[in-house]
Protein backbone atom coordinates (compact mmCIF):
# COMPACT_ATOMS: atom_id res chain seq x y z
CA UNK A 1 0.00 0.00 0.00
CA UNK A 2 1.24 3.48 -0.86
CA UNK A 3 1.98 5.79 2.03
CA UNK A 4 -0.38 8.79 2.17
CA UNK A 5 1.30 12.19 1.73
CA UNK A 6 -0.82 13.68 4.50
CA UNK A 7 -1.54 11.62 7.59
CA UNK A 8 -3.12 12.74 10.82
CA UNK A 9 -3.38 10.70 13.98
CA UNK A 10 -5.21 11.42 17.23
CA UNK A 11 -5.87 15.06 16.42
CA UNK A 12 -7.73 17.01 19.10
CA UNK A 13 -8.39 20.74 18.98
CA UNK A 14 -10.43 22.93 21.31
CA UNK A 15 -12.24 26.24 21.41
CA UNK A 16 -11.69 27.25 25.02
CA UNK A 17 -12.54 24.15 26.99
CA UNK A 18 -14.92 22.62 24.46
CA UNK A 19 -13.17 20.25 22.11
CA UNK A 20 -14.23 20.84 18.53
CA UNK A 21 -12.58 17.71 17.17
CA UNK A 22 -11.59 14.65 19.16
CA UNK A 23 -8.87 12.13 18.35
CA UNK A 24 -9.31 12.39 14.59
CA UNK A 25 -7.46 10.06 12.23
CA UNK A 26 -7.31 11.29 8.67
CA UNK A 27 -5.18 10.76 5.58
CA UNK A 28 -4.94 11.81 1.93
CA UNK A 29 -2.97 10.40 -0.98
CA UNK A 30 -1.36 12.09 -3.92
CA UNK A 31 -3.68 12.85 -6.86
CA UNK A 32 -6.87 12.40 -4.90
CA UNK A 33 -9.96 14.40 -3.96
CA UNK A 34 -10.94 13.78 -0.36
CA UNK A 35 -14.20 15.12 1.00
CA UNK A 36 -14.82 15.88 4.65
CA UNK A 37 -18.58 15.85 5.01
CA UNK A 38 -20.80 16.58 7.96
CA UNK A 39 -23.42 18.93 9.36
CA UNK A 40 -22.73 22.43 10.70
CA UNK A 41 -20.61 22.38 13.82
CA UNK A 42 -19.20 18.93 13.09
CA UNK A 43 -15.66 20.31 13.19
CA UNK A 44 -14.87 20.44 9.47
CA UNK A 45 -13.39 23.93 9.53
CA UNK A 46 -11.48 23.17 12.72
CA UNK A 47 -9.92 20.12 11.10
CA UNK A 48 -8.84 22.08 8.00
CA UNK A 49 -7.48 24.99 10.04
CA UNK A 50 -5.56 22.61 12.28
CA UNK A 51 -3.93 21.06 9.23
CA UNK A 52 -3.05 24.47 7.75
CA UNK A 53 -1.74 25.69 11.10
CA UNK A 54 -4.05 28.66 11.59
CA UNK A 55 -5.57 26.91 14.60
CA UNK A 56 -3.52 25.55 17.46
CA UNK A 57 -4.07 21.89 18.28
CA UNK A 58 -4.13 20.28 21.69
CA UNK A 59 -3.03 16.78 20.81
CA UNK A 60 -2.11 14.63 17.89
CA UNK A 61 0.35 14.36 15.06
CA UNK A 62 0.32 15.71 11.53
CA UNK A 63 2.61 13.95 9.12
CA UNK A 64 3.09 15.66 5.74
CA UNK A 65 5.59 14.73 3.01
CA UNK A 66 7.69 12.82 5.49
CA UNK A 67 7.79 15.53 8.18
CA UNK A 68 6.03 15.99 11.49
CA UNK A 69 4.56 19.46 11.09
CA UNK A 70 2.11 19.76 13.98
CA UNK A 71 4.24 22.38 15.72
CA UNK A 72 5.07 24.38 12.60
CA UNK A 73 3.71 27.88 11.97
CA UNK A 74 1.42 28.53 8.96
CA UNK A 75 4.19 29.94 6.79
CA UNK A 76 6.45 26.91 7.15
CA UNK A 77 3.62 24.50 6.35
CA UNK A 78 2.77 26.62 3.35
CA UNK A 79 6.36 26.49 2.14
CA UNK A 80 6.31 22.70 2.40
CA UNK A 81 3.17 22.54 0.28
CA UNK A 82 -0.09 23.04 2.18
CA UNK A 83 -2.56 25.77 1.29
CA UNK A 84 -5.92 26.48 2.88
CA UNK A 85 -8.64 28.38 1.00
CA UNK A 86 -10.82 29.60 3.88
CA UNK A 87 -14.59 29.78 3.71
CA UNK A 88 -14.75 33.53 4.25
CA UNK A 89 -12.27 36.33 3.77
CA UNK A 90 -10.63 34.33 1.02
CA UNK A 91 -9.65 37.15 -1.36
CA UNK A 92 -7.81 40.46 -0.95
CA UNK A 93 -10.87 42.72 -1.16
CA UNK A 94 -9.34 45.99 -2.37
CA UNK A 95 -7.08 44.51 -5.04
CA UNK A 96 -7.90 43.73 -8.65
CA UNK A 97 -8.37 40.11 -9.69
CA UNK A 98 -5.03 40.25 -11.48
CA UNK A 99 -3.19 41.56 -8.45
CA UNK A 100 -4.80 38.97 -6.20
CA UNK A 101 -3.39 36.26 -8.44
CA UNK A 102 -0.01 37.95 -8.73
CA UNK A 103 0.43 38.06 -4.98
CA UNK A 104 -0.59 34.44 -4.52
CA UNK A 105 2.30 33.14 -6.63
CA UNK A 106 4.79 34.69 -4.21
CA UNK A 107 6.33 31.36 -3.19
CA UNK A 108 6.63 29.97 -6.72
CA UNK A 109 9.73 30.51 -8.79
CA UNK A 110 9.49 33.18 -11.44
CA UNK A 111 9.44 30.80 -14.38
CA UNK A 112 6.28 29.07 -13.16
CA UNK A 113 4.29 32.14 -12.20
CA UNK A 114 2.78 33.14 -15.51
CA UNK A 115 1.79 29.57 -16.31
CA UNK A 116 -0.05 29.24 -12.99
CA UNK A 117 -1.97 32.47 -13.48
CA UNK A 118 -2.81 31.61 -17.10
CA UNK A 119 -4.09 28.22 -15.93
CA UNK A 120 -6.52 29.95 -13.54
CA UNK A 121 -7.76 32.20 -16.37
CA UNK A 122 -8.19 29.10 -18.54
CA UNK A 123 -10.26 27.37 -15.84
CA UNK A 124 -12.33 30.46 -15.07
CA UNK A 125 -12.56 32.64 -18.22
CA UNK A 126 -14.79 35.11 -16.34
CA UNK A 127 -11.81 35.99 -14.14
CA UNK A 128 -9.84 36.92 -17.25
CA UNK A 129 -12.70 39.18 -18.37
CA UNK A 130 -12.85 40.72 -14.91
CA UNK A 131 -9.10 40.83 -14.28
CA UNK A 132 -9.05 44.58 -13.72
CA UNK A 133 -12.05 44.57 -11.40
CA UNK A 134 -11.60 45.06 -7.64
CA UNK A 135 -12.24 41.77 -5.86
CA UNK A 136 -14.97 42.94 -3.48
CA UNK A 137 -17.08 44.17 -6.40
CA UNK A 138 -17.23 40.66 -7.90
CA UNK A 139 -20.34 38.54 -7.45
CA UNK A 140 -20.29 35.83 -4.76
CA UNK A 141 -19.68 33.11 -7.32
CA UNK A 142 -16.85 35.01 -9.00
CA UNK A 143 -15.21 35.69 -5.65
CA UNK A 144 -15.36 31.97 -4.91
CA UNK A 145 -13.69 31.24 -8.24
CA UNK A 146 -10.99 33.75 -7.42
CA UNK A 147 -10.51 32.16 -4.00
CA UNK A 148 -10.07 28.73 -5.59
CA UNK A 149 -7.82 30.43 -8.14
CA UNK A 150 -5.59 31.66 -5.33
CA UNK A 151 -5.38 28.08 -4.09
CA UNK A 152 -4.27 26.93 -7.55
CA UNK A 153 -1.70 29.66 -8.08
CA UNK A 154 -0.24 28.84 -4.69
CA UNK A 155 0.92 25.65 -6.44
CA UNK A 156 0.61 23.74 -3.18
CA UNK A 157 0.89 19.96 -3.17
CA UNK A 158 -2.26 19.72 -1.06
CA UNK A 159 -5.02 22.29 -1.42
CA UNK A 160 -7.49 22.46 1.46
CA UNK A 161 -10.78 24.15 0.58
CA UNK A 162 -13.37 24.99 3.21
CA UNK A 163 -16.93 24.54 1.89
CA UNK A 164 -16.53 26.07 -1.57
CA UNK A 165 -20.18 25.41 -2.48
CA UNK A 166 -21.64 27.54 0.29
CA UNK A 167 -23.80 30.39 -1.01
CA UNK A 168 -23.55 29.26 -4.64
CA UNK A 169 -26.46 28.53 -6.98
CA UNK A 170 -26.85 24.78 -7.76
CA UNK A 171 -25.65 25.21 -11.35
CA UNK A 172 -22.50 26.99 -10.18
CA UNK A 173 -21.82 24.27 -7.61
CA UNK A 174 -21.85 21.65 -10.36
CA UNK A 175 -19.53 23.75 -12.51
CA UNK A 176 -17.15 24.48 -9.63
CA UNK A 177 -16.97 20.81 -8.66
CA UNK A 178 -16.28 19.79 -12.25
CA UNK A 179 -13.50 22.35 -12.34
CA UNK A 180 -12.01 20.93 -9.15
CA UNK A 181 -12.02 17.50 -10.74
CA UNK A 182 -10.28 18.90 -13.81
CA UNK A 183 -7.68 20.56 -11.59
CA UNK A 184 -6.93 17.23 -9.97
CA UNK A 185 -6.63 15.50 -13.33
CA UNK A 186 -4.46 18.26 -14.82
CA UNK A 187 -2.13 18.84 -11.89
CA UNK A 188 -2.12 15.42 -10.19
CA UNK A 189 -2.37 17.24 -6.89
CA UNK A 190 -4.43 16.54 -3.82
CA UNK A 191 -7.58 18.44 -2.96
CA UNK A 192 -9.17 18.12 0.46
CA UNK A 193 -12.49 19.87 0.75
CA UNK A 194 -15.09 20.11 3.43
CA UNK A 195 -18.65 20.02 2.18
CA UNK A 196 -22.31 19.89 3.05
CA UNK A 197 -23.42 19.50 -0.52
CA UNK A 198 -24.49 16.08 -1.78
CA UNK A 199 -22.84 16.70 -5.15
CA UNK A 200 -19.51 16.01 -3.49
CA UNK A 201 -20.29 12.35 -4.26
CA UNK A 202 -19.72 13.08 -7.96
CA UNK A 203 -16.12 14.20 -7.56
CA UNK A 204 -14.58 12.85 -4.34
CA UNK A 205 -12.50 9.69 -4.40
CA UNK A 206 -12.98 9.17 -0.69
CA UNK A 207 -15.18 10.67 1.99
CA UNK A 208 -14.69 11.18 5.68
CA UNK A 209 -17.95 11.58 7.57
CA UNK A 210 -17.56 13.95 10.51
CA UNK A 211 -20.13 14.39 13.23
CA UNK A 212 -19.77 16.14 16.59
CA UNK A 213 -16.01 16.22 16.25
CA UNK A 214 -15.61 12.52 15.52
CA UNK A 215 -15.08 10.48 12.39
CA UNK A 216 -18.20 8.44 11.61
CA UNK A 217 -16.99 6.82 8.42
CA UNK A 218 -13.99 6.69 6.12
CA UNK A 219 -14.97 5.12 2.82
CA UNK A 220 -14.28 5.12 -0.88
CA UNK A 221 -17.08 7.12 -2.48
CA UNK A 222 -18.15 4.25 -4.68
CA UNK A 223 -18.91 2.19 -1.57
CA UNK A 224 -21.15 4.87 -0.06
CA UNK A 225 -24.83 5.36 -0.69
CA UNK A 226 -26.36 8.80 -1.04
CA UNK A 227 -28.57 8.07 1.92
CA UNK A 228 -25.73 7.60 4.37
CA UNK A 229 -24.29 10.99 3.41
CA UNK A 230 -27.72 12.64 3.47
CA UNK A 231 -28.44 11.21 6.91
CA UNK A 232 -25.12 12.55 8.13
CA UNK A 233 -25.93 16.06 6.87
CA UNK A 234 -29.18 15.92 8.76
CA UNK A 235 -27.22 14.90 11.82
CA UNK A 236 -28.68 11.44 12.39
CA UNK A 237 -26.42 8.71 11.17
CA UNK A 238 -26.79 6.25 14.00
Amino acid at each position, binding site marked *: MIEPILKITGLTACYGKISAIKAINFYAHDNEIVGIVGPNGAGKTTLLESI*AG*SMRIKNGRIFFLGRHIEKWP*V*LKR*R*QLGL*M*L*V*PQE*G*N*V*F*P*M*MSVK*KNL*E*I*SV*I*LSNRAERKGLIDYVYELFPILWERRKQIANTLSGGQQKMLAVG*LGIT*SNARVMLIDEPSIGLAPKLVTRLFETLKKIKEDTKKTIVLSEQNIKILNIADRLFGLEAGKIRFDEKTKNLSRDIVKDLYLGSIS
Partner: protein
Amino acid sequence: MLLNGIITGLIMGGILSLPVLGVAVIYGITGIPNFAIGVIGVLGGFVTWYFLSFNMGVAIVIGIAVCFIIGYIIQRILLTPISERGGDSTLFFIITVSVGFVFEGIIRAIFPRPNISLELPRIGTINLAGVTVEGFKIFALLFALGTLVVIRLLEEHTEIGKSWQATSQNLKLAKLIGINTNRVFSIASGIGCALACVGAIFWGSLYNLQVSTGWDLGFMGFIIAVVGGIGNIWGGIISALIMGMVMSFSGYLLGGEWQSVILYFIVILVLIIAPKGILGSERSL
Protein backbone atom coordinates in the same frame (compact mmCIF):
# COMPACT_ATOMS: atom_id res chain seq x y z
CA MET B 1 1.65 88.21 2.75
CA LEU B 2 -0.81 85.79 1.20
CA LEU B 3 1.86 84.12 -0.90
CA ASN B 4 4.28 84.11 1.99
CA GLY B 5 1.66 82.42 4.14
CA ILE B 6 0.97 79.80 1.49
CA ILE B 7 4.64 79.00 1.04
CA THR B 8 5.34 78.79 4.77
CA GLY B 9 2.27 76.60 5.17
CA LEU B 10 3.26 74.27 2.36
CA ILE B 11 6.74 73.80 3.78
CA MET B 12 5.51 73.22 7.30
CA GLY B 13 2.93 70.79 5.96
CA GLY B 14 5.58 69.07 3.87
CA ILE B 15 7.83 68.47 6.86
CA LEU B 16 4.94 67.38 9.02
CA SER B 17 3.86 64.98 6.31
CA LEU B 18 6.96 62.85 6.93
CA PRO B 19 6.01 61.70 10.44
CA VAL B 20 2.42 61.55 9.15
CA LEU B 21 3.59 59.17 6.44
CA GLY B 22 5.45 57.21 9.09
CA VAL B 23 2.28 56.87 11.15
CA ALA B 24 0.25 56.03 8.03
CA VAL B 25 2.65 53.32 6.88
CA ILE B 26 2.88 51.69 10.31
CA TYR B 27 -0.81 51.91 11.11
CA GLY B 28 -1.92 51.05 7.60
CA ILE B 29 0.09 47.86 7.53
CA THR B 30 0.32 46.65 11.13
CA GLY B 31 -2.90 48.17 12.48
CA ILE B 32 -0.92 49.37 15.49
CA PRO B 33 -1.01 53.04 16.54
CA ASN B 34 2.61 53.80 17.41
CA PHE B 35 3.02 57.02 19.41
CA ALA B 36 6.73 56.53 19.96
CA ILE B 37 7.85 57.18 16.41
CA GLY B 38 8.30 60.93 16.92
CA VAL B 39 10.66 60.41 19.86
CA ILE B 40 12.53 57.68 17.97
CA GLY B 41 12.80 60.07 15.01
CA VAL B 42 14.23 62.79 17.27
CA LEU B 43 16.75 60.30 18.65
CA GLY B 44 17.81 59.79 15.02
CA GLY B 45 18.05 63.58 14.69
CA PHE B 46 20.38 63.74 17.70
CA VAL B 47 22.47 60.86 16.32
CA THR B 48 22.77 62.72 13.01
CA TRP B 49 23.77 65.90 14.84
CA TYR B 50 26.48 63.96 16.73
CA PHE B 51 28.12 62.73 13.53
CA LEU B 52 27.49 65.89 11.51
CA SER B 53 30.98 67.35 11.92
CA PHE B 54 32.39 64.08 10.62
CA ASN B 55 30.50 63.92 7.34
CA MET B 56 27.01 65.18 6.57
CA GLY B 57 25.89 62.36 4.28
CA VAL B 58 27.21 59.65 6.57
CA ALA B 59 25.63 61.34 9.58
CA ILE B 60 22.19 61.42 7.98
CA VAL B 61 22.47 57.81 6.84
CA ILE B 62 23.51 56.69 10.34
CA GLY B 63 20.61 58.58 11.94
CA ILE B 64 18.06 57.08 9.56
CA ALA B 65 19.56 53.60 9.86
CA VAL B 66 19.45 53.75 13.67
CA CYS B 67 15.75 54.62 13.52
CA PHE B 68 14.99 51.89 11.00
CA ILE B 69 16.70 49.30 13.19
CA ILE B 70 14.94 50.50 16.36
CA GLY B 71 11.58 50.41 14.56
CA TYR B 72 12.29 46.95 13.19
CA ILE B 73 13.34 45.55 16.56
CA ILE B 74 10.52 46.98 18.71
CA GLN B 75 8.01 45.63 16.21
CA ARG B 76 9.66 42.23 16.14
CA ILE B 77 10.18 41.64 19.85
CA LEU B 78 7.40 43.75 21.36
CA LEU B 79 4.52 44.89 19.18
CA THR B 80 3.95 41.88 16.90
CA PRO B 81 3.88 39.39 19.80
CA ILE B 82 1.41 41.59 21.70
CA SER B 83 -0.71 41.99 18.59
CA GLU B 84 -0.82 38.20 18.12
CA ARG B 85 -2.16 37.84 21.61
CA GLY B 86 -4.94 40.25 20.71
CA GLY B 87 -3.74 43.62 22.03
CA ASP B 88 -6.20 46.47 21.52
CA SER B 89 -5.68 50.16 20.73
CA THR B 90 -5.69 51.25 24.37
CA LEU B 91 -2.98 48.75 25.26
CA PHE B 92 -0.90 49.85 22.29
CA PHE B 93 -1.36 53.49 23.24
CA ILE B 94 0.06 52.84 26.70
CA ILE B 95 2.83 50.56 25.49
CA THR B 96 4.02 52.81 22.67
CA VAL B 97 3.87 55.94 24.84
CA SER B 98 5.97 54.07 27.40
CA VAL B 99 8.42 53.10 24.67
CA GLY B 100 8.53 56.80 23.77
CA PHE B 101 9.42 57.74 27.36
CA VAL B 102 12.13 55.08 27.40
CA PHE B 103 13.71 56.60 24.31
CA GLU B 104 13.26 60.13 25.65
CA GLY B 105 15.25 59.06 28.70
CA ILE B 106 17.88 57.48 26.46
CA ILE B 107 18.24 60.72 24.48
CA ARG B 108 18.67 62.73 27.71
CA ALA B 109 21.23 60.24 29.00
CA ILE B 110 23.34 60.06 25.85
CA PHE B 111 23.03 63.70 24.72
CA PRO B 112 22.94 65.95 27.77
CA ARG B 113 21.86 69.04 25.80
CA PRO B 114 18.46 70.69 25.94
CA ASN B 115 18.30 71.43 22.24
CA ILE B 116 20.33 71.22 19.10
CA SER B 117 20.29 72.78 15.69
CA LEU B 118 21.37 70.83 12.64
CA GLU B 119 23.52 72.94 10.36
CA LEU B 120 22.69 71.70 6.90
CA PRO B 121 23.52 73.56 3.66
CA ARG B 122 20.81 76.05 2.73
CA ILE B 123 21.09 75.46 -1.04
CA GLY B 124 20.86 79.17 -1.88
CA THR B 125 17.60 81.04 -2.23
CA ILE B 126 14.85 80.90 -4.79
CA ASN B 127 12.61 83.77 -5.78
CA LEU B 128 8.98 82.72 -6.10
CA ALA B 129 6.81 85.54 -7.46
CA GLY B 130 8.48 88.14 -5.31
CA VAL B 131 8.90 86.01 -2.19
CA THR B 132 12.39 84.80 -1.35
CA VAL B 133 12.53 81.22 -0.11
CA GLU B 134 15.53 79.22 1.03
CA GLY B 135 16.34 76.46 -1.40
CA PHE B 136 16.56 74.08 1.53
CA LYS B 137 12.90 74.61 2.40
CA ILE B 138 11.84 73.87 -1.15
CA PHE B 139 14.02 70.76 -0.99
CA ALA B 140 12.28 69.68 2.23
CA LEU B 141 8.88 70.01 0.60
CA LEU B 142 9.91 68.21 -2.58
CA PHE B 143 11.54 65.47 -0.54
CA ALA B 144 8.31 64.85 1.36
CA LEU B 145 6.25 64.68 -1.83
CA GLY B 146 8.89 62.51 -3.49
CA THR B 147 8.80 60.07 -0.57
CA LEU B 148 5.06 59.72 -1.01
CA VAL B 149 5.45 58.95 -4.70
CA VAL B 150 8.20 56.40 -3.99
CA ILE B 151 6.04 54.62 -1.42
CA ARG B 152 3.11 54.45 -3.84
CA LEU B 153 5.37 53.10 -6.60
CA LEU B 154 6.81 50.49 -4.25
CA GLU B 155 3.30 49.39 -3.35
CA GLU B 156 2.23 49.00 -6.95
CA HIS B 157 5.29 47.52 -8.54
CA THR B 158 7.38 45.54 -6.07
CA GLU B 159 6.80 42.26 -4.38
CA ILE B 160 7.39 43.72 -0.92
CA GLY B 161 4.93 46.51 -1.71
CA LYS B 162 2.27 44.05 -2.82
CA SER B 163 2.91 42.05 0.34
CA TRP B 164 2.24 45.22 2.38
CA GLN B 165 -1.08 45.71 0.65
CA ALA B 166 -2.05 42.08 1.03
CA THR B 167 -1.13 42.06 4.71
CA SER B 168 -3.09 45.21 5.45
CA GLN B 169 -6.18 44.02 3.54
CA ASN B 170 -6.44 40.48 4.87
CA LEU B 171 -3.88 39.37 7.43
CA LYS B 172 -5.13 35.81 7.78
CA LEU B 173 -5.16 35.17 4.04
CA ALA B 174 -1.76 36.85 3.64
CA LYS B 175 -0.33 34.32 6.09
CA LEU B 176 -2.09 31.40 4.40
CA ILE B 177 -0.79 32.46 1.01
CA GLY B 178 2.78 32.43 2.26
CA ILE B 179 3.64 36.03 3.01
CA ASN B 180 6.04 36.41 5.90
CA THR B 181 3.75 38.87 7.67
CA ASN B 182 6.03 39.25 10.68
CA ARG B 183 8.77 40.54 8.43
CA VAL B 184 6.33 42.81 6.60
CA PHE B 185 5.31 44.31 9.97
CA SER B 186 8.91 44.82 11.08
CA ILE B 187 9.95 46.47 7.84
CA ALA B 188 6.88 48.74 7.93
CA SER B 189 7.74 49.79 11.47
CA GLY B 190 11.37 50.40 10.49
CA ILE B 191 10.34 52.54 7.51
CA GLY B 192 7.86 54.49 9.64
CA CYS B 193 10.54 55.35 12.20
CA ALA B 194 13.03 56.19 9.44
CA LEU B 195 10.48 58.64 7.94
CA ALA B 196 9.98 60.22 11.34
CA CYS B 197 13.76 60.60 11.54
CA VAL B 198 13.88 62.44 8.20
CA GLY B 199 11.12 64.68 9.48
CA ALA B 200 13.10 65.36 12.65
CA ILE B 201 16.25 66.14 10.66
CA PHE B 202 14.40 68.72 8.53
CA TRP B 203 12.73 70.12 11.62
CA GLY B 204 16.07 70.34 13.40
CA SER B 205 17.68 72.29 10.60
CA LEU B 206 14.77 74.69 9.98
CA TYR B 207 13.85 75.31 13.61
CA ASN B 208 15.57 73.47 16.42
CA LEU B 209 15.31 70.05 17.95
CA GLN B 210 14.46 69.49 21.60
CA VAL B 211 13.93 66.19 23.32
CA SER B 212 10.24 67.07 23.62
CA THR B 213 9.95 67.79 19.88
CA GLY B 214 9.52 64.04 19.48
CA TRP B 215 6.16 64.12 21.21
CA ASP B 216 5.06 67.10 19.11
CA LEU B 217 6.02 65.33 15.91
CA GLY B 218 4.55 62.01 17.04
CA PHE B 219 1.22 63.27 18.31
CA MET B 220 0.77 65.87 15.61
CA GLY B 221 1.70 63.26 13.04
CA PHE B 222 -0.91 60.99 14.47
CA ILE B 223 -3.65 63.58 14.66
CA ILE B 224 -2.98 64.75 11.13
CA ALA B 225 -3.01 61.15 9.92
CA VAL B 226 -6.40 60.59 11.58
CA VAL B 227 -7.78 63.76 10.01
CA GLY B 228 -6.64 62.56 6.58
CA GLY B 229 -8.07 59.08 7.15
CA ILE B 230 -5.69 56.92 9.11
CA GLY B 231 -3.68 54.45 7.08
CA ASN B 232 -4.58 56.37 3.93
CA ILE B 233 -1.32 57.78 2.59
CA TRP B 234 -2.89 60.33 0.21
CA GLY B 235 -5.27 61.50 2.91
CA GLY B 236 -2.32 61.92 5.25
CA ILE B 237 -0.35 64.15 2.94
CA ILE B 238 -3.35 66.28 1.94
CA SER B 239 -4.22 66.68 5.60
CA ALA B 240 -0.61 67.62 6.43
CA LEU B 241 -0.55 70.32 3.76
CA ILE B 242 -3.90 71.72 4.90
CA MET B 243 -2.78 71.73 8.54
CA GLY B 244 0.45 73.42 7.56
CA MET B 245 -1.60 76.17 5.88
CA VAL B 246 -3.90 76.49 8.88
CA MET B 247 -0.91 76.88 11.19
CA SER B 248 0.79 79.34 8.90
CA PHE B 249 -2.27 81.57 8.37
CA SER B 250 -3.55 81.46 11.93
CA GLY B 251 0.00 82.44 12.98
CA TYR B 252 0.04 85.36 10.54
CA LEU B 253 -3.47 86.61 11.21
CA LEU B 254 -3.92 86.01 14.93
CA GLY B 255 -0.40 85.52 16.27
CA GLY B 256 1.51 82.37 17.18
CA GLU B 257 -0.29 81.78 20.48
CA TRP B 258 -3.58 81.12 18.64
CA GLN B 259 -2.05 78.60 16.25
CA SER B 260 -2.78 75.48 18.24
CA VAL B 261 -6.24 76.68 19.30
CA ILE B 262 -7.29 77.12 15.67
CA LEU B 263 -5.50 73.96 14.52
CA TYR B 264 -7.04 71.60 17.03
CA PHE B 265 -10.43 73.27 16.79
CA ILE B 266 -10.41 72.43 13.10
CA VAL B 267 -9.22 68.89 13.85
CA ILE B 268 -12.17 68.33 16.17
CA LEU B 269 -14.57 69.89 13.70
CA VAL B 270 -13.36 67.70 10.82
CA LEU B 271 -13.62 64.56 12.93
CA ILE B 272 -17.17 65.39 14.01
CA ILE B 273 -18.20 65.83 10.38
CA ALA B 274 -16.08 62.96 9.00
CA PRO B 275 -15.08 60.53 11.76
CA LYS B 276 -13.08 58.45 9.28
CA GLY B 277 -11.07 61.44 8.07
CA ILE B 278 -11.05 63.52 4.92
CA LEU B 279 -10.36 60.69 2.49
CA GLY B 280 -11.71 57.95 4.73
CA SER B 281 -9.92 54.90 6.01
CA GLU B 282 -10.25 51.17 5.58
CA ARG B 283 -9.38 50.70 9.21
CA SER B 284 -10.71 52.56 12.19
CA LEU B 285 -9.08 53.11 15.55
